């Protein structure tokens, strides 16, 4: 049985561990490859090292977490080896060719695909599998290739974020507004409720395109993926690309006057009404029960 290598991204332990569990579906031996966390990130150099380890061991597959860096490093491996790569896989059936189920449209649609390549290169959709404790996994610690050509593109500096407020990706509660909010000023009612709940403010792409909110507030396929305890979506219709960003929410409360809005098909709770009346009423009620 051939070996499967798993690229472990430092600082992304859970998703890397999920990639190990996923790689177990391939059957063979497992070896994790860990890079020295102190080294500057250089995708081509990391890929070169993975290629060398894969060749030394005659690896049958290389698996990476479906993160920004996981997908990027694996794409470099694929380009170096001129082999196919399947990004964001949910499951794999080994064979020649291997068959995968992979995500399209940020997970709103799936695809069954055959991967005609060796080694088989797969990244794993975040949270497609739950990480389980793996035994008999060999660990390989490496340094990235120092070849000048592979080091042309590398991180030369990291500028820290001026962190203000609750981060959208990590918030326990998110209150979002969509086109139904009507204007940038209209967001004051959303901000007020968010402040009372210690929540992050989110929005739809209709809102960022109109310039009412910055893109950093956008929830969705091309925005931020959120996973709060509750997501309160106000004046949002529920386009698949928006929903791709809030699938991780434990509960969804939608506020919309249109009872036919598609967001209600994914909602746990519905309030049928105008957000400009409903949201201030919720804020007032919270103040009332708190006695403030």
């Amino acid at each position, binding site marked *: 049985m051939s070996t499967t290598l798993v690229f472990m991204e430092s600082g992304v332990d859970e998703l890397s561990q999920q990639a190990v569990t996923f790689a177990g579906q391939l059957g063979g031996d497992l070896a994790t490859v860990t890079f020295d966390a102190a080294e500057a990130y250089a995708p081509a150099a990391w890929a070169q090292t993975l290629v060398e380890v894969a060749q030394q061991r005659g690896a049958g597959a290389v698996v990476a977490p479906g993160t920004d860096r996981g997908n990027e490093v694996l794409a470099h491996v694929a380009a170096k080896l001129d082999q196919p790569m399947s990004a964001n896989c949910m499951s794999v059936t080994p064979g020649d060719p291997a068959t995968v189920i992979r995500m399209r449209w940020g997970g709103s*649609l799936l695809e069954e695909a055959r991967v005609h390549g060796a080694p088989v290169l797969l990244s794993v959709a975040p949270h497609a599998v739950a990480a389980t404790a793996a035994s008999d996994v060999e660990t390989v610690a490496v340094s990235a290739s120092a070849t000048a050509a592979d080091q042309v593109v590398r991180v030369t500096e990291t500028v820290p974020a001026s962190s203000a407020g609750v981060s959208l990706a990590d918030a326990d509660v998110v209150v979002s507004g969509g086109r139904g909010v009507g204007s940038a000023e209209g967001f004051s009612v959303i901000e007020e409720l968010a402040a009372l709940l210690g929540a992050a403010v989110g929005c739809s792409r209709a809102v960022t395109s109109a310039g009412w909110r910055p893109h950093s507030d956008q929830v969705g396929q091309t925005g931020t993926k959120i996973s709060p305890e509750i997501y309160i979506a106000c004046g949002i219709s529920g386009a698949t690309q928006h929903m791709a960003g809030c699938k991780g929410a434990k509960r969804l409360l939608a506020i919309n006057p249109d009872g036919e809005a598609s967001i209600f098909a994914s909602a746990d709770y519905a309030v049928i009404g105008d957000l400009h009346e409903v949201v201030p009423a919720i804020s007032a009620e919270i103040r009332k029960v708190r006695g403030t």
Partner: protein
Amino acid sequence: MNILICVKRVPLTGGKITLTDDEQAIQTRHLGFTVSPHEECAAEEAIRLIEAHGGESVVLTLGPAEAEEQLRDMMAIGVDRAIHLVTDGGEWDPQATAAAIVDAIRADGMAFDLILFGNESADAGNYQVAVRVAYALGLPVVNGIKGITADGGNLRCEREVAGGRDIYAVPAPAVVSVLEGINLPRYPSVPGRMRAKRKPLAASEPPRAQPRLEMVRLLLPEGSSKQAEVLGHGPDAAPRVVEILTEIGVI
């Protein structure tokens, strides 16, 4: 500074995706089409860089005859000319897509200082066409970029990471894939749309290689279709909403 932008035509799916009976495509009979927001931002970024530094912008797509619509859209916001690699509309895998793009770049003959991509295509999300094109052309590549500053022969590229922004100094010519949020794309004006109709568009039909990432069929994710509990109509629903928020411990 000469800049190429690669875009892909995709359906605007709205609230629900329906598949064709053969499960090979999305049912698009009643849908409009667009390109990924990442790619729209790539076009906007190209136009801004050229406004600042001079040069020519070119938009390229590999897609069906109808994808001329997306090329004209990009020219309407200011891209100078277009390359259309016309297909029969079927899915091309990322290796075949990259190879066709590379051939077209070589055939065009223009020396591009920058080749811009979206970080991932909206529909397939393969996360790789840009990297493959870069390797074939022997160019450096950086992905997921949210800020580009041209500074002599170098491009300063910024990428968001947990806790801040990573900075890359990339020598041009280079391949860069960008994310939505790098800018706020302009809307096309009516005169922009008129001008776009007359801008040059070169069409050709590239040969299609056997797919090595071969799509077998599409499938919809397990229906999580829920029956929402209606908490009420209008502001009268507020007390019930607060009860729920209290129950789940967020108040």
